[in-house]
């Protein structure tokens, strides 16, 4: 049955080569922890991606309840955390996932650095990886404001003051991020848009490039 459905689609779209490109390739043996236990360091990248997937999914579900408005944002978070079944768990996943993504990404960066995997011909992939690092830090910064509680608000105040201290463009950057002179309704709407649309868009694009390059070049050889 399944085979028939597959054949039907395959006849029309010729998907077998696609499948081959995505899944049917080889991986060097030295990155498999089953062969050398020390190879677990090669898992950090995959785990980072796994947490990113958790973040995207839990974030999508959270927006079912969340409203980006200074009057109702806090109440909606409070509601989904305390009144909605499993809301506490899903928000917890998003909250702790945010920290874990940073941890795993940090470890992944160190692994790539200390195995010298960024060297020719993989320079570009390293640059994309560092850009991903920035995007994820940006996601952390913008996401922190969204619950609109005390912690969120004042951390953003400090963060934007740091941005303001930059020479020449400081004031401009701060106003642009805050969406106005004060940190309030417009800031929250802006941070929400950045957190939910702009940065994830950039994240997906960069991740695509990251994976494409890995697939094209293969994993770097053993030391």
């Amino acid at each position, binding site marked *: 049955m399944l085979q028939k459905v597959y054949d039907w689609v395959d006849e029309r779209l010729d998907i077998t080569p696609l499948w081959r490109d995505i899944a049917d390739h080889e991986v060097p043996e030295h990155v498999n922890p089953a062969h050398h236990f020390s190879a677990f360091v090669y898992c950090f990248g995959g785990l980072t991606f796994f947490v990113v997937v958790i973040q995207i999914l839990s974030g999508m579900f959270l927006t079912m309840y969340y409203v980006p408005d200074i009057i109702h944002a806090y109440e909606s978070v*409070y509601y989904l955390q305390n009144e909605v079944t499993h809301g506490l768990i*899903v928000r917890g996943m998003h909250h702790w996932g945010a920290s874990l993504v940073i941890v795993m990404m940090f470890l992944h960066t160190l692994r790539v650095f200390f195995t010298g995997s960024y060297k020719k011909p993989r320079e570009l992939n390293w640059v994309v990886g560092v850009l991903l690092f920035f995007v994820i830090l940006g996601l952390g910064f913008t996401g922190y404001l969204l619950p609109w509680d005390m912690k969120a608000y004042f951390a953003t105040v400090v963060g934007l003051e740091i941005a303001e201290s930059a020479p020449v463009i400081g004031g401009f950057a701060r106003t642009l991020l805050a969406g106005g002179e004060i940190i309030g309704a417009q800031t929250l709407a802006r941070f929400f848009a950045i957190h939910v649309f702009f940065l994830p868009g950039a994240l997906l694009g960069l991740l695509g490039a990251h994976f494409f390059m890995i697939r094209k070049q293969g994993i770097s050889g053993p030391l």
Partner: protein
Amino acid sequence: MSEKKHRVSRRQFLTYTLTGVGGFMAAGMLSPMVRMALDPALEATGDSEFVAVGLGEDELTEEPQIVNFELEIEDAWYTSEQPRSAWIYKDGDEIIALSPICTHLGCTVNWDANEDYPEQFFCPCHFGRFERDGTNVAGTPPTRPLDVYDVEVRDGMIYLGQINQRS
């Protein structure tokens, strides 16, 4: 040959295990999220409270009269007052409060409003009609009687509760 067919190759075995582990991960990740998304559908709807409509029991007559009142609707993190109305009258000792929402397409019905159909609830949208007790007149668009409110009398004042459908 036939024996070979029944044996699971190493590759197949790994693929099965792989889908198993993948399924476990997907389930572990998604089940709390899906449960959260489904929450409104699975949550038991509680009976709504009785609200005073500002009308005394002795003010009621056999003739249906409209009362307007406000109902506090708690919608998750947003609470609002919503206007409601009811046609109330006395049927012997019993107090009957009918919802004025036509069961056809949700227009508002009026008592005794059309000269051709006295002593009936009349819906101006598609000429649906209901008897005094709310029963739909056969041959008009509505297919079920008007909904009724739960009624309670406290200290001589009328209180209306939740709206019940009649088949």
